[in-house]
């Protein structure tokens, strides 16, 4: 509701003066980050040390890399961050608005790369392994964000992504375990997701319950019901029929030819099915949302349902079915947890990634490609901290574990500028 009240100010605020100062702020942040990283590395790392990047041969053991690239740690960091700082200075002085997005992504990427070089000073690291992990870990977040943005573009807030995922993970696992077919499990997870989302749709679209409340109810329900199912059924079934459970996690599908390309192969073409589906969905939904009648109508009922209604779109009916459809995607995200990344179900195993997905959606300003970017931001911070914890590194572990959340927070709050949600999001539509 607040969003609509402040709408006029928002639009006024998006005009030139605010934008100019934002370029300045971003530029200055860039300079500060560069200065901080350079001084930290210069002070903490011996100038004679090298950070070696290993490029693995696809399919070969890790001790036989295709190439080893030794980089002098301190010199590399000074050059990279120095350039970044100079560009930041230029942006701040000349106020290059159109550079901001590119600059911010480069800044984050280079900051992560610098921390990686710093962590592995005097040692070597498999860079490709980190990047492949970034894609894998982005999968559930991207899918969750896509589900969220379909709902919100239709004017329905869906904070129940987390709970929907958890339901999908649980039921999908049960079906796979009992039937012996993981594919069936994935389908069951999607179906479950859409049913749970349908509950949200019934409550929030038909009964016009406050959408936040409805979402919260589903999140709480998910923890309770899936926990109950695990205790009363899954664990017992595993113990009784342990030897008969034939289903396994989804297989890794190496795309012939492409997966053999060094660097690109492991990063993009050696994944499990849900990760591929995620990559396809990002572009498919982008196309659907901005290039089809369905997309136009969806955006219309989220921006101005009354206008949509006057041209004959059945607002509530469309909202209902869009929310149900989004459940298919969050159910698929749930299947990632219990059927792709592992083959097990544990209490609350989604660990808040459904909420991170919503942050990614906002980060991407309610566009599929942007949401994917947001998910990559979080997952790369996560992949980075997992990797560098394994090295004896000066920064405290708690800080590293906090990194993904910290980066998300800082970027959301300060750098991307004001995000404008669909105008009618959160408001039940009443005809007449």
């Amino acid at each position: 509701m607040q969003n609509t009240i402040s709408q006029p100010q928002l639009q006024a605020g998006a005009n030139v003066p605010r934008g100019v100062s934002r370029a300045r702020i971003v530029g200055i942040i860039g300079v500060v980050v560069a200065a901080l990283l350079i001084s930290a590395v210069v002070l903490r790392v011996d100038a004679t040390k090298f950070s070696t990047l290993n490029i693995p041969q696809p399919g070969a053991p890790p001790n036989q890399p295709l190439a080893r690239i030794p980089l002098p740690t301190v010199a590399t960091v000074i050059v990279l961050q120095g350039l970044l700082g100079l560009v930041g200075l230029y942006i701040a002085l000349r106020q290059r608005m159109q550079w901001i997005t590119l600059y911010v992504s480069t800044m984050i990427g280079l900051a992560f790369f610098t921390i990686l070089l710093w962590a592995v000073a005097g040692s070597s690291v498999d860079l490709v392994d980190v990047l492949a992990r970034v894609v894998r870990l982005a999968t559930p977040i991207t899918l969750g964000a896509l589900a969220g943005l379909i709902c919100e573009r239709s004017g329905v807030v869906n904070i129940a992504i987390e709970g929907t995922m958890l339901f999908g993970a649980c039921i999908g696992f049960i079906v796979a375990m009992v039937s012996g077919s993981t594919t069936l499990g994935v389908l069951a997870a999607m179906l479950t997701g859409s049913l749970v989302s349908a509950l949200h749709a019934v409550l929030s679209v038909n009964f016009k319950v406050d959408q936040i409340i409805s979402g919260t109810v589903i999140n709480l329900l998910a923890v309770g019901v899936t926990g109950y199912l695990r205790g009363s059924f899954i664990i017992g079934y595993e113990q009784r029929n342990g030897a008969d459970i034939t289903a396994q996690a989804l297989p890794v599908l190496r795309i012939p030819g492409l997966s053999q390309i060094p660097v690109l192969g492991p990063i993009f073409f050696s994944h499990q099915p849900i990760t591929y589906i995620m990559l396809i969905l990002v572009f498919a939904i982008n196309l659907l949302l901005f290039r089809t009648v369905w997309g136009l109508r969806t955006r219309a009922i989220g921006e101005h349902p009354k206008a949509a209604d006057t041209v004959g779109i059945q607002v509530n009916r469309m909202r209902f079915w869009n929310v149900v459809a989004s459940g298919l995607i969050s159910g698929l995200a749930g299947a990632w947890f219990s059927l792709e990344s592992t083959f097990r179900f544990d209490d609350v195993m989604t660990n808040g990634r459904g909420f991170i997905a919503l942050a990614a959606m906002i980060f991407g300003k309610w566009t599929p490609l942007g949401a994917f970017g947001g998910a990559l931001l979080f997952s790369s911070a996560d992949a980075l901290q997992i990797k560098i914890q394994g090295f004896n590194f000066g920064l405290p572990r708690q800080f590293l574990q906090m990194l993904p959340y910290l980066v998300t927070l800082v970027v959301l709050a300060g750098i991307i500028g004001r995000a404008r949600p669909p105008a009618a999001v959160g408001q039940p539509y009443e005809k007449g």
Partner: protein
Amino acid sequence: MRKTLINLLLTVLLLPILAACGAAGDGTSTGGTASGAAAGSAAASGAPTPIETEAASVAAGVAATTAATTAAETTTAETTETSAAGGADGSNIRVALVTDVGKVNDGTFNQFAFQGLQRAEQELGAQIDYIETQQQGDYEKNLEQFASGDYDLVIGVGFLMGDAIKAAASRHPDVNFAIVDFAYGDNPPANVKGLVFQEDQAGYLAGTMAALVSQSNTIGVVGGIEEVPAVKKFVQGYEAGAKAQKPDISVRQVYIPSFTDPAAGGEAARSMIAEGADVIFGAGGQTGSGAIQEAAKQGAFVIGVDQDEYTTTFRGGSTEGADKIVTSAIKRVDNAVFDTIQSVVEGNFSNELYVGTVENGGIDYAEAHDASAVVTADIKAKVDEVKEGLTNGSIQTGVQVQ
């Protein structure tokens, strides 16, 4: 079409809830007829028993609100209640367990503690009861339910319950408490017994094994929440044990700030494998189990924790990678729990800290099962030698964690 879907949906979603209610109903009726009705069932049936009035004075609403949950869960516990066996007679002793977040059959220390409880039921005839905690915020409530009931001993599982137990103990000075994995320092409350373990010794044995099995001279460990001392002791003991065998070995450590994130655990394991690690130790609940499952799939050797994970995580050898688990770092929580119950039965309960070590059988390592081709007689002999050294004190792990 939409109407039908709505109806269908409501039916589907209500089913599990109805099922839960059905179970609760059964629990109530069983509890009513069994000899010693549990506090939960009594409250649920609404009978004005002394238990309930006492509960009412302390925490009026608590018993009633959690009654349904307990009733459902006490069903299994009460069926075998009357089978008192020989030895010390504990049939008038009532013992209750509050699990950490998890279940009494979840393959973690919750299950192990519950096994100790079950043994006390069979061998001592004690009356047992339990609540499975759903989330951390419920510790106090669950403890209060038993403490304000007519129980002789209330056992909490897990370091994270430390404060809740202490609070409950000061409110109920007449009830004895025990807590797994928590020590209250020099001045423990008079009615609380801490049950802790030298996890560093278990980790040390695991590290010894890992160093001997490793070909690449790089090994890894995935820990759970670093702030939990048990986790840190496992990890540091592991490093110490490995370095004692091979001083130049590289021990990679990753902590994941959750015990229930198997996906992140698996990724951490893969990350270390990419850097050449060929043995992975998972020391962090289900996060650790996820790590060793994934590591075994990737072809690395793995080491489980707490119980023999060959029988839990690898389902007795039926899952992929079961031939990769070379051992597990074992903590006999069940024995510690059983001994504590026995001390109550025999009337000599004290607040003295129990410390499980290799020496008193509280710490051990599991056999190799399907990986016995890798764990040769030589390796096993060396690990046993280290175990002997830890027992007689000639080997110290050197780990200091508080």
